[in-house]
């Protein structure tokens, strides 16, 4: 660590790491092969947990939403679940269904975004443009539902802030139909493309044993054949009524290899699953209240009186998100707030994935876990002679694109 020069120092410390931040990998290289990797994550600690421990949970909802720009509902929902469990607040059923619908719409947009990024990383830019074009539909729908494309501000402690009207229901059906007609075409576009298959098959393999022992989460774990999904394992909100089954790649390909291709399969199948879940939720959504206590002053008074601790878990598009909160009587502020974003758990599984990978495969392997940070802004290669070389993101991307061109010429 001491031999690496960062060229800058981080101003102030105590924050949670796993969010929109730069991350650094140091690879040990022999020829073109990666022999080992060290991961340094702490380059832009924002101190969100520290800030959160000086605010009340209602203020923290908005802070939590800004942990990540993509998983806008994820952190707010996990925090709300933790607070509700700590203080025994019961969420009205209608609010639980609305939460499910927003969370699943977010999964659709996040997985389409990921598929576009993955295509871009291997130099398949036409697919990248097409996927991001079709993603606009769900972004617009989210804007209609919540008022915002990102940072929806829909979650409230004890419920949600906006209802889904009859008119919006029709908008959602329309959007679901749009994605149903696209689903097969997206699968053909990526999974049956010979060059994409060459670039992703047997690349960045994570075995089932490693996924289990290194506590991988989300599509990264499921692609290795671990049927792990919070929506299934510990059903919460309306998932408890509808029922969810974790998706593993053998449903599509008949086998589990745990490589980048399998991670693509899992995500594309999960788009179909989300469409299905939203469909069922819209059909079965009960009438009634959408929030436990509308009056925020009363809600805060209740929080101030309350005491207890709780853990909230939500299956984010990237995997399980965990929030732990603790309240002490007499204070409305959180006494303890621990955030664990999915990428935190997927840091260690990167190490076996990089073993014996090629330098040109680094971008797609990094992208394959869908890390939630402005990742790979640079990589340092250490040659056996001790010579060191720093590659920028652009140079690495060029290497990756050249490899795709080479393969497609064959």
């Amino acid at each position: 660590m001491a031999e690496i020069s960062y060229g800058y120092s981080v101003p102030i410390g105590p924050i949670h790491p796993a969010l929109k931040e730069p991350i650094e990998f140091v690879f040990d290289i022999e020829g073109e092969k990666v022999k080992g990797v060290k991961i340094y994550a702490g380059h832009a600690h924002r101190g969100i947990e520290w800030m959160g421990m000086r605010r009340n949970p209602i203020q923290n909802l908005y802070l939590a939403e800004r942990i990540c720009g993509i998983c806008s509902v994820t952190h707010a929902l996990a925090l709300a679940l933790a607070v509700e469990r700590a203080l025994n607040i019961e969420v009205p059923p209608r609010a639980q269904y609305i939460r499910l619908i927003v969370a699943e719409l977010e999964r659709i947009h996040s997985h389409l975004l990921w598929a576009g990024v993955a295509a871009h990383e291997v130099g398949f830019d036409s697919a990248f443009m097409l996927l991001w074009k079709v993603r606009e539909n769900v972004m617009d729908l989210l804007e209609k539902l919540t008022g915002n494309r990102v940072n929806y501000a829909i979650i409230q402690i004890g419920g949600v802030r906006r209802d889904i009207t009859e008119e919006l229901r029709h908008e959602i059906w329309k959007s679901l139909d749009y994605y149903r007609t696209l689903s097969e075409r997206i699968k053909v576009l990526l999974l049956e493309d010979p060059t994409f298959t060459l670039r992703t098959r047997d690349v960045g393999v994570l075995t089932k044993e490693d996924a289990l022992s290194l506590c991988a989460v989300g599509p990264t774990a499921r692609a290795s054949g671990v049927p792990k999904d919070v929506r299934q394992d510990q059903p919460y909100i309306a998932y408890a009524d509808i029922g969810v089954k974790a998706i593993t790649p053998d449903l599509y390909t008949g086998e589990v290899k745990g490589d980048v291709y399998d991670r693509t399969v899992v995500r594309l199948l999960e788009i179909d699953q989300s469409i299905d879940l939203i469909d069922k939720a819209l059909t079965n959504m009960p009438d009634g209240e959408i929030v436990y206590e509308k009056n925020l002053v009363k809600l805060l008074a209740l929080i101030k009186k309350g005491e207890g601790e709780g853990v909230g878990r939500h299956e984010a598009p990237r995997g399980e998100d965990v929030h732990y909160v603790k309240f002490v009587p007499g204070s409305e502020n959180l006494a303890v707030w621990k955030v664990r974003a999915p990428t935190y758990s997927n840091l260690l599984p990167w190490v076996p994935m990089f073993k014996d990978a090629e330098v040109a495969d680094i971008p797609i392997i990094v992208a394959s876990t869908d890390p939630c940070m402005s990742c790979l802004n640079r990589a340092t290669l250490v040659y056996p002679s001790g010579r060191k070389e720093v590659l920028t993101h652009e140079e690495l991307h060029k290497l990756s694109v050249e490899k795709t061109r080479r393969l497609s010429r064959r």
Partner: protein
Amino acid sequence: MRILDVQEMMSFFKEKLGENLISCELRSWTAGLKKVECKEIWLEIKPNVLPDFVKLLKELDEAPHSLVASAEDLGDDIAVIYHLSVYSGEFNREIQINVRVKVPKSDPRLPSISHLIPGALITEQEKEEMIGVIYEDLPERRHVFIADDFPRDIYPWRKDEKGPQSLIRKVNE
């Protein structure tokens, strides 16, 4: 995998840990119109039996999952809570287990569990840098989540004089 229900699991812990088990509590909550019930076990154990406790979990499930460990500054003590889970893979079968251990600030040493659950390594490293717990048997000791040039004797989650107050720029004053 040896599937026990929550009550059986709690008696299993009580029997195996004996007086090393300080408290053991069942908490549950419901979800959906059907009021599906999910259960969590909250325990407090003595710090020296932490690896033994994880070995007990491994008797029940070969690969227990480590969600994360959270930590709290209690004044004279530091509490670390390991959030673990077993039996994932089927609808509503998983049981979440939250184990609390307390160590005094004067001697904040804890046994590591990362040789039993390799995935817990990163959260233990985080506890070292964030609150100043010391895991003696950690394979690697370095800053993971805060910058490497961050002062070594300051721990962001501490509420005492080792906290980050001196580093905070007061922009509003």
